[in-house]
């Protein structure tokens, strides 16, 4: 790993000021960034830790919305969201392993937008709002393909606002070596309709499965999906599974999520 200057600001304003430098990069839990710096895929001149900013940490309910600070760890979400939004807490509790959950954060996960990551499915599957130091971005506009997001250079996520669903669940088929999702589905039911987001499957990253949303909005049961298939077009194909296998898993995991959501 190349060396760098380490800074740990105490406020969002101070962090954003340092990040105005092109050669500076934010560090949250480091569970993705540190391995990629070791592999020299990333070599920032200055690393700006976000873990010393109290405003970025915490889970808090504001009427029908659950607001989660960007630097809140997966372990804390698993614990503190359990009462208000059990589907999200369960998702956080399935990320990686306990040591990863004690460091990794929701903001880091959403900024990274790994095509097999868990949180993107919850954010897109609820129509969450990604709040940054300068604006608010709806999930439908935020995710822009594998590892690509609407974030600008130097822009940091400060919190995520999740509309709390009436019922929800995340069904994850674990890729046991990486612990990421081989394919997973997040299903959320609202008075206005059902949203379904799929991660791990598409070469374009997390996506909404529109046909399943339509079917589930009129009949919220696994049976409503019985005759529905997802196309293998542009699905990921690698040594862990073919495109057709992943397309099949999309249906299986969505049905499991619907059953679990009840």
């Amino acid at each position: 790993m190349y060396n760098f200057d380490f800074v740990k600001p105490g406020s969002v304003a101070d962090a954003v000021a340092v990040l105005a430098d092109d050669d500076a990069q934010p560090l949250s839990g480091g569970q993705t960034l540190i391995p990629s710096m070791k592999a020299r895929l990333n070599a920032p001149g200055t690393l700006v830790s976000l873990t010393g900013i109290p405003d970025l940490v915490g889970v808090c309910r504001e009427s029908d919305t659950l607001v989660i600070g960007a630097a809140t760890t997966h372990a804390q979400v698993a614990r503190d969201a359990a009462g208000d939004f059990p589907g999200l807490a369960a998702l956080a509790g399935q990320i990686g392993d306990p040591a990863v959950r004690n460091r990794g954060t929701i903001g880091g996960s959403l900024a990274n937008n790994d095509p097999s990551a868990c949180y993107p499915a919850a954010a897109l599957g609820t129509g969450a709002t990604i709040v940054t130091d300068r604006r608010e971005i709806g999930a439908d506009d935020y995710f822009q393909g594998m590892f690509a997001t609407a974030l600008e250079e130097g822009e940091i996520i400060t919190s995520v606002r999740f509309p709390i669903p009436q019922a929800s669940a995340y069904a994850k088929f674990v890729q046991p070596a990486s612990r990421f999702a081989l394919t997973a589905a997040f299903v959320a039911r609202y008075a206005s309709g059902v949203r379904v987001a799929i991660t791990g499957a598409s070469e374009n990253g997390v996506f909404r499965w529109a046909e399943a949303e339509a079917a589930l909005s009129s009949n919220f049961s696994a049976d409503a999906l019985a005759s529905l298939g997802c196309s293998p077009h542009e699905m990921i194909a690698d040594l862990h599974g073919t495109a057709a296998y992943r397309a099949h898993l999309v249906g299986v995991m969505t049905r499991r999520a619907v059953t679990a959501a009840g």
Partner: protein
Amino acid sequence: MSKVTMTVNGRERSAEVEGRTLLSGFLREGLELTGTHVGCDTSQCGACVVLVNGQAIKSCTAFAHDLDGAEVTTIEGVANADGSLGRIQQAFKDYHGLQCGFCTPGMVMSTAALLAENPKPSEEEVRHYLEGNICRCTGYQNIVRAVMAASGQEAGALAAE
């Protein structure tokens, strides 16, 4: 280089380290506490797990500077005051929860975190909690038995996986 100070196994310890120095390097090279093992150095194996402010983390995947001021417990800190093996260490010995011993420091520290959170875990909870700790030797069976024994539960009757 600048100074980082942590309370390690109850004692305040400092070392001069670079920005890129990992917690594992701070412990092993800075403080010469080589009980914490680095297996993969890619965040996968859990050999390097230590407790930071009571929570299990992978010391190869955190920067020392980010943990300035933290309270750290390593494998060197788990023996009893008289030098005899701690409860978890003794159970790993009694139930043959190790062969080469490379993964053992991480296994013991993860177990310490588990039992602090959940003093009487089920076998399934033990297996789930230790998912991030990889062992190349034992096949895990005796590790799970050791953890069950360390939690004061009957370890004899576990089904083979």
